[in-house]
């Protein structure tokens, strides 16, 4: 794992969390929808919070796809689940929301889980024949060994 790859994993976590929060903030402005007002749903993207949220979620998706191109799904998913923790910490230290003992325990479990998977190998070594495209077949397996 190079520094650049850790940055991509951090990008997944941060962009997904920030994007979701901005979308939620924007939808609060707009109130609830009914299925009869589909035009309102289209107009929702004009709300600056919603626009910003969508842009961040696009950034999230690009990072996610990039990570999946060089790491296993079972590595990327747990490794990027710190977002749950991030939201709780922002709510606690930023907005002074109370966090119960069970939630702190949940935060601890997620953090330990993330550390656990991140310390292990990021990709299953592939056989040469599976790499038909541009990447060198050894790049992945070398990384697993290191």
């Amino acid at each position, binding site marked *: 794992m190079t520094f*650049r*790859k850790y940055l991509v994993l951090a990008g997944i976590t941060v962009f997904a969390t920030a994007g979701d929060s901005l979308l939620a903030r924007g939808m609060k402005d707009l109130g609830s929808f009914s299925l009869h007002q589909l035009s309102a749903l289209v107009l929702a993207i004009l709300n600056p919070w919603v626009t910003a949220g969508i842009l961040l979620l696009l950034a999230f998706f690009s990072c*996610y*796809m*990039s990570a*999946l*191109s*060089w790491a*296993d*799904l*079972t*590595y*990327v*998913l*747990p490794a990027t*689940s710190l977002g*749950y923790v991030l939201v*709780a910490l922002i709510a606690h230290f930023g907005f002074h929301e109370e966090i119960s003992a*069970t*939630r702190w*325990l*949940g*935060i*601890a*479990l*997620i*953090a*330990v*889980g*993330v550390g*656990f*998977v991140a*310390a*292990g190998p990021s990709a*299953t070594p*592939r056989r040469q024949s*599976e*790499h*038909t*495209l*541009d*990447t*060198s077949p050894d*790049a*992945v397996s070398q990384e697993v060994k290191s």
Partner: protein
Amino acid sequence: MRDIYAWAAILLIVLASTTGDVLLSYSMKRVGDVGELWKRRGVLTVIGRVFSTPTFALGLAAMTIAFYSLLFGLSWGNLSLVVPASAALTFVANAVAARIFLHERVGRRRWIATLLVAAGVVLMAV
């Protein structure tokens, strides 16, 4: 009765998002290391190659189904049931599916990490 609908939605979310994740992961493995490709051929080649992978579109479709199932699930069940239950079950389902369909080596370390994160997600919602 509403609970049955909520759990049906949860089941659909888990199935659709696991299918989506597996298909997207499979597609990106076929594209190869995006960073390397970008350096060698430029960003347009990367985008072109991703979008010309047929399983990528299927994966996006599955993700869209998962997203709308979540919206329906939220209108039938509680936020505090639907979101953590589907998130935790998706972590576990993905580990099983990645092992079966993507032949990923899911060793003890990854199983423990997956279960810790799934349990943590549930606890944070209680």
